[in-house]
């Protein structure tokens, strides 16, 4: 019998806000333990939560970006369980009235080759809700210490329908969410910092069956490749159990990315009863049309929409767009530069960014924002190459100098004497005429159809230009003159 896997993902995204979700104390990563705390975070007796509006704005924006319906009214519930990283021993979350309902995530599957766009699909979402993050336990040899810096960081949980079937789809889904959240300024989605986390619900069923099989929840998929590997491993494990005549049990399993294995954490019988009930300390939130529209106006173009536009409007190759698109700043840089460079030059702009620019940024360990190269200076550089003032090899040198000093390309060209010689097309034509006139034998050969004879005219021109003449331009000029000769 043939089986298919059914996968649903629960993705937690930390929302990037200045302060925590229910109190004023700052949110952040990498601070001294327990410095981002206050009486509310530590759940001291008598403290109360107050909703952070910036966190609500962010999740509404996320919902709008993913095409969710924004609930006109949503409420807050307590999810109750005891664990030392949870200061109140309940987590404020949303149970039956989440703020975002439905929606979908567009994904792209791997193409047949690296330079070929893969199939696109829409993975439907069940919901997105807002909750608070918990602290972190650090286990020592004889004790465990708790750091509550992370506790109370706004967290949204994006829940997909059980609508994916392969580890690749899950990988693509997570990647797409990541890009979308970064575009929206909602989160940096740095998985190493725990800003993006993923649990997967996985089951298998005979192909053609519509009912879901026994589901296993896979936890601790804490890098994007662990998500892919963990899911692939779990599907294989389930298929093997069934193939051996075994029966799958509903359980939660812990995936270890280092060893590529998983082990059972708890079975269904040991599942928590979270005893959800509406949090009496928080009022329901009403999202009216004006609030929604204000946020909608702040929503950026989605990454895949932008990619389609780049392919259509700028005619850049797919491979270049797949470098530009994931980083919103880079794609914006490209677009600004391509527009300044003018028609027909976007591909060159894209090449510069995808190759030289990214290489220099990475070597200098600089973020895009700190770069001294601007869209305008790159456009100018591309222009100089296009009109023949700069040879490609020289242009690379100019680019490195521009990156280091922030000078305009023309200034670098002048300073380093890198301009193609002659820089005046009239002078080059004179040199070419003289060279043709000086070699009638080659002229006859060329006229007789021996194309290689043209090289005989090039030598004296290149010599006159001391090697800095633009070969392409020399070739073009000679051919034009020879055609008329």
């Amino acid at each position, binding site marked *: 019998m043939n089986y298919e896997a059914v996968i649903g993902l629960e993705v937690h995204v930390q929302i990037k806000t200045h302060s925590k979700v229910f109190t004023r104390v700052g949110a952040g990563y990498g601070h001294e333990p327990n410095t981002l705390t206050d009486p509310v975070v*530590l*759940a001291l007796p*008598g403290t*109360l939560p107050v909703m952070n509006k910036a966190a609500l704005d962010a999740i509404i924006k996320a919902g709008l970006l993913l095409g969710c319906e924004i609930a006109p009214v949503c409420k807050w519930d307590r999810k*109750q369980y005891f664990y*030392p990283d949870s200061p109140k*021993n309940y987590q404020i979350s949303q149970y039956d009235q989440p703020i975002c309902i439905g929606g979908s995530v567009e994904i792209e599957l791997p193409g047949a080759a690296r330079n070929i766009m893969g199939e696109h699909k829409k993975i439907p979402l069940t919901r997105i809700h807002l909750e608070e993050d918990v602290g972190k336990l650090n286990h020592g040899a004889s004790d465990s210490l708790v750091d509550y810096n992370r506790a109370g960081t706004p967290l949204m949980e994006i829940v997909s329908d059980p609508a994916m079937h392969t580890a690749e789809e899950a990988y693509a889904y997570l990647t797409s969410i990541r890009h979308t959240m970064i575009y929206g300024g909602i989160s940096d989605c740095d998985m190493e910092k725990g800003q993006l986390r993923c649990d997967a619900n996985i089951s298998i069923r005979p192909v053609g069956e519509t009912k879901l099989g026994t589901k296993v929840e896979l936890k601790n998929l804490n890098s994007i490749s662990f998500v892919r590997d963990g899911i692939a491993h779990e599907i294989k494990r389930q298929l093997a159990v069934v193939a051996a005549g075994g029966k799958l049990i509903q359980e939660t399993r812990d995936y270890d990315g280092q060893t590529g294995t998983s082990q059972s954490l708890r079975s269904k019988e040991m599942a928590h009863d979270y*005893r959800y*009930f509406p949090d009496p300390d928080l009022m329901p939130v009403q999202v009216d049309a004006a609030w929604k529209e204000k946020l909608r106006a702040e929503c950026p173009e989605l990454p895949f929409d932008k990619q389609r536009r780049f392919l259509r409007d700028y005619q850049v190759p797919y491979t270049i767009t797949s470098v530009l698109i994931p980083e919103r700043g880079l794609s914006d840089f490209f677009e600004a530069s391509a527009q300044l460079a003018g028609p027909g030059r976007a591909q060159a702009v894209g090449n510069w960014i995808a190759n030289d620019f990214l290489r220099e940024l990475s070597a200098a360990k600089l973020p895009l924002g700190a770069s001294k190269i601007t869209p305008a200076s790159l456009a100018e550089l591309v222009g100089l190459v296009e009109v023949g003032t700069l040879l490609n090899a020289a242009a690379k040198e100019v680019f490195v100098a521009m990156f280091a000093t922030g000078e305009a390309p023309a200034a670098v060209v002048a300073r380093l004497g890198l301009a193609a010689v002659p820089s005046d097309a009239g002078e080059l034509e004179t040199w070419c005429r003289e060279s043709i006139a000086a070699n009638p034998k080659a002229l006859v050969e060329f006229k007789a159809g021996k194309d290689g004879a043209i090289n005989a005219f090039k030598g004296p021109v290149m010599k006159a230009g001391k090697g800095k003449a633009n070969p392409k331009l020399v070739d073009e000029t000679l051919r034009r003159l020879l055609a008329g000769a």
Partner: protein
Amino acid sequence: MSVPLHFQSIAELSEHLAARRISSVELTQAVIARTKAVESRVHAFNSFDEPDALAQAVASDSRRAGGQSCGALDGIPIGLKDVIAVSGQPLTASSKMLANFVSPYNATVTESLQSAGAVLHGRLNCDEFAMGSSTENSAFGPAHNPWDLTRTPGGSSGGSAAALAAGAAIATLGSDTGGSIRQPAALCGLVGLKPTYGLISRFGLIAYASSLDQIGPFARTVEDAAIVLGAIAGHDPRDSTSFKTEIPDYRAELKRRRGPWKLGIPKEYFGAGLDPEVGAAVEKAIAFYRAHGCEIREVSLPHTHYCLDAYYVIATAEASSNLARYDGIRYGHRSKEAKDVLDVYQKSRAEGFGDEVKRRIILGTYVLSSGYYDAYYLRAQKVRTLIRRDFLNAYREVDALITPTSPLPAFKLGEKSADPLAMYLCDIYTIGVNLAGLPALSLPCGFTAGGLPIGLQLIGQPFREADLLATAHAYEQAHDWHTKFPSL
């Protein structure tokens, strides 16, 4: 001054202070001396900090000397129930769980009283986590009723009532979740006000049942209650359930609002279980209002019968969740026997909580459990809506309701402590008000033949405390119950 300082009202004492007949230091010293004299018999306090109180009094006097007095409360010693956070002071909720906890922050009401210049004096005894009706659930031993030391001052804010009745404070704050201000006020011959839910910030109040809890004042007179209420009422951005509403000058309104009012007598509040002496005293109070020109009308609150049931589902559900934070991890009692994390939870909570608290946590956990939520919690919330509707329907006909506060006067310590259900019945006249979120106050309306105070409950309309206080004031002006003090 025939009445000793420690038995005078805020209104009287603030005049003495303003006229420089006394200083806040003198007043505070007098109250502390009285506290020391009676505390071993009354046990109204979990702790008090004499140097701290005197330092506040000194600060008040120097404000006054500099012409910077803050008003009627400046220099007046006020005690706080030990569930309200005061920075640098213990905050125990009368529980072993928090026996060594010192609050690093202030409740909003604490800050309000401080900016009104009050001298915060003492952490007042109560039932553990405000759960109870007699203060016998305090982990530190019960408070005693100053009118009869063998009897309870009521609860859960029994210490707040006992301290004030004994002259160990000039006013106090309590909290009221099902009657915890009004019932002890009734049992100790005081005015006790439970404001509308949302009028006073709960930030810094240890939560028992968040949707029912409300802080309120105990005072010797209605006027004093109005003064304290004015200082602590108002919206607080730190409490999402606090309401944005205009705060009138409650004290000034007492004189402006003179009635006559239409008063309703809910027939369900005068049935079986009502002590005849209490019933008779309340009837006399009703007769007074009638004579005062008020129209008295019988009304019905048909869902009254379900109040206790709905309350013990909702309150315990919320309590089971609110008290989850006391786990021995970050603060509070941690069992010395604990070997692992589950042990820390189980042993710390087993050792740290008393029986009544455990009973309510277990009940609340049960009613929220998967499969039971709809049958208990959800249904109780629906009943709660019906109960509130009963009151609002009555208010289409009348301005306020009159009932007894407690079916019984102060009972003997130990009399009901073995029978939780009998204890729960002490709150039958007060609980509906919390479920409906309404304001209500208890004021003295007589004494039993045995000399125990009797309380009258007036129930008002949402955020109309000014009318409620004025209605009570009219009665008080014509009676002298508030001028009687226990001999202690």
